[in-house]
């Protein structure tokens, strides 16, 4: 690698946001025909770096060289022109436009000065097929697609632009193993076609499988660059977090059979065509996982418990007593004591422009106020506790929560619910886009809460997490519970097999087997 002329180089890039140094003389060089992984914990500056590269953010200092000559991009369009295409995690699809419109959005095919819809559709179909997402109808509106499908559209859109450098910022974080496998196939083919790929992910196994070259960032600087496979996972993680690292998952306690009624129990829950006769129970102190491919009804199930869905049939019992939960307001009330860590922290968990303080106490305002008036001393105490407990890294309580890095934002969402001391905690893929260090803290927290008597229902798209954290896992398929895995039965093989609704024996081991 050393001898190859880099296709693209960044030197001495710095970027500040007020007092925050997002990047500090960061360097990066990218070569054609290779996949370059970028690693770093939350807030290390990875996204900022690629935003600079993609023309979204103007750097304070530093220079960039493409093919050996200096360049600067005034806008994402300019970067596109130069062949740099970036898949941002979730910001760049236009929801009210169709999939096809989105795929060709930066440069639609034209006839007589107007957009040629036939050609547009052809391009879209090709791109979707290349991304392995031919099942997505090009006329469907993006807003009607689930997150995982949207990410596939993002990828198709990037491919349609015929990039020289393709950047994926946590582009797989909402994808399931099956989609990830497809995408990996595509990425590897692109590499062999001579593209340079930049890949940001917090999933170590993905990086191990995909990357040729890795660069680790910490606090806005690049701390190490090495050929993939030349360092052990533990070494990499230590580079990222700058400290020693061990045991990612806390040990699972041996649990005595429950004597009391389960804290949360569902019988024959059905809802439209998404939930089909689901029965389950969660005991106090238990962490129950929800597995399966994405979009099999896991999210709906959590929303059903939380009182969001209308026209639900079946029964829900809390502590053995039948309840009806008509709204989140009721779900969080003292009788039920439920909390939901929602899927998308930016639109469902937080009010980004509001301060960290206001976000933290938002769900607990009723408890913190008397006669409607907020007891600010009590609020401050509780917030201090939570910031301490979750080690939330923030420049202050009165800055907008949107200025925190993804991982810390997620911690705020969790802390905001812990302020109510919930007895039932529903988690909807809470570690999406979170670095290993933070993940570890979360796993430990989850176990701690369970040990304190909480009943936890935990949906994750990451099988490792389900294996490492859960006492039991229910695998959903097409809205129904297909299989229950208990204790040692929870293995990757079993999870994948039941997710695909096939027998374990027929399943090839390893997801990226097509490499």
């Amino acid at each position: 690698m050393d001898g190859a002329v880099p296709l693209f180089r960044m030197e001495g890039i710095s970027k500040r946001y007020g007092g925050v140094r997002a990047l500090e003389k960061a360097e990066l060089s990218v070569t054609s025909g290779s996949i370059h992984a970028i690693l770093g914990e939350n807030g290390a500056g990875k996204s900022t770096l690629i935003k600079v590269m993609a023309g979204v953010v103007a750097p304070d200092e530093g220079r960039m060289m493409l093919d050996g000559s200096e360049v600067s991009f005034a806008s994402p369009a300019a970067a596109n022109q130069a062949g740099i295409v970036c898949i941002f995690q979730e910001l760049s699809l236009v929801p009210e436009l169709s999939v096809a419109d989105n795929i060709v959005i930066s440069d639609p095919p034209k006839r007589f000065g107007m957009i040629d819809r036939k050609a547009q559709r052809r391009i879209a179909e090709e791109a979707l097929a290349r991304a392995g997402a031919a099942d997505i109808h090009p006329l469907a509106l993006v807003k009607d697609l689930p997150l995982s499908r949207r990410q596939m559209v993002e990828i198709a859109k990037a491919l349609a632009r015929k990039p020289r450098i393709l950047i994926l910022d946590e582009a797989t974080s909402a994808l399931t193993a099956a989609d990830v496998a497809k995408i990996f196939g595509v990425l590897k083919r692109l590499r062999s076609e001579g593209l340079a790929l930049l890949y940001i992910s917090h999933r170590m196994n993905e990086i191990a499988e995909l990357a040729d070259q890795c660069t680790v960032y910490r606090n806005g600087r690049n701390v190490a660059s090495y050929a993939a496979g030349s360092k052990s996972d533990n070494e990499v993680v230590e580079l990222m977090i700058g400290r020693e690292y061990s045991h990612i998952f806390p040990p699972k306690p041996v649990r005595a059979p429950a004597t009391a009624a389960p804290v949360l129990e569902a019988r024959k829950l059905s809802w439209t065509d998404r939930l089909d006769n689901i029965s389950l129970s969660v005991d106090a102190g238990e962490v129950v996982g929800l597995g399966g491919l994405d979009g099999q009804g896991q999210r709906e199930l959590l929303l059903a418990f939380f009182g969001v869905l209308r026209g639900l049939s079946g029964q829900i019992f809390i502590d053995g007593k039948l309840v009806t939960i008509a709204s989140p307001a009721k779900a969080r009330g003292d009788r039920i004591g439920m909390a939901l860590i929602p899927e998308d922290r930016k639109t469902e968990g937080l009010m980004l422009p509001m301060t960290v303080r206001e976000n933290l106490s938002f769900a607990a305002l009723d408890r913190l106020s008397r006669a409607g008036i907020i007891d600010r001393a009590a609020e401050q105490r509780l917030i201090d506790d939570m910031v301490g407990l979750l080690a939330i890294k923030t420049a202050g309580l009165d800055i907008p929560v949107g200025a925190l890095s993804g991982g810390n934002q997620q911690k705020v969402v969790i802390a905001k619910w812990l302020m109510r001391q919930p007895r039932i905690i529903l988690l909807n893929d809470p570690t999406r886009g979170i670095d290993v260090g933070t993940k570890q803290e979360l796993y430990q927290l989850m176990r701690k809460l369970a040990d304190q008597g909480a009943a936890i229902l935990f949906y994750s798209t990451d099988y490792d997490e389900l294996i490492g954290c859960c006492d039991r896992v229910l695998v959903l398929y097409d809205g129904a519970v297909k299989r229950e895995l208990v204790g040692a039965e929870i293995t990757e093989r079993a999870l994948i097999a039941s997710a695909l609704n096939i027998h374990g024996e027929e399943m090839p081991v390893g997801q990226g087997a097509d490499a």
Partner: protein
Amino acid sequence: MSETTIGGIAGRMPKFIRRADPAVLTAFACIVLLLFVGSLYSRSFLSPEYLLQQLKVASFLGVIATGMMLVILLGQIDLSVPWSVAAGAMMACAAAAYGPVGMALAIPFGIFCGVLIGVVNGIGVAYLRIPSMIITLATNAVAQGLMVVYTGGFSPQDSATPAMRYLATGFAIPGVPNAVVIWALIGAAMVFVLTRTGFGRTVYGIGNRERAAYLSGIDTRRVVLIAFAVSGGLSAFGGVLLAGYASKAAQSMGDAYLLPSIAAVVLGGTSILGGRGSYLGTVAGVILITLLQSILSVMQMPEAGRQIIYGVVIVAMLLLYGRAPASR
């Protein structure tokens, strides 16, 4: 490092200034500038009587803009202001026709009518999820229709009661018109609600992201409903005060308050998209608009020139401090 340099100067300033939005400070600076420009034309623009009178007149707009601000903070808008104002004034005067009981209940009844309009708006926006811009337009039309029917049919009684007169033009505190006191009280209550109560936090939360507020277990629809009801009530109360000021109610009395109330709130730095803004800003916006209208009126500017200057000044002031941050 920035801590120490700023700390030196800021440390000596009162806390509320240190925390104030730059937009609000600029708005107040614009007020001073406006008065200065006015005083070049005539010394009387700086006379205490004139200023006090402006404050009095501003308080009607102030009361109405308070309700408007609450709704705008939610990311909504209330276009039913004109006829909420008129209905409040007319119904209060109407109630006064019904003997001593009517006299006593006149003001609450007027406000109640405004609240009713607000409740219809609130139900439409919160429960039927009709965009506020259109449902409030429709309720405005309905309120107008009701008032026309009422006026034509019932030998309308439209003189303000002594109590209304007193509220709008009397002096409980020597030198300070009651209307100003009332505005100050309502404003103080609003500041308290917005900053110290759960309701206020929720309003900001919904304005920023209603989905997240809902998933936090807030009954967001109730909050929206209440906010619209309050807005309707405050509009009607503004109408009651206006009726007291003019000593009578008239159908068209609210027309002149819709666009100025929106402009005042936004000039005060509140985001029309919701979720951001402070009441102090609205106070500044209200005074700005009132002064601007008054100065232009007294300067004998023909209507055409007045409209042009009014528009240009608003744009200029917003360009000075109301710009959204650059995207990069």
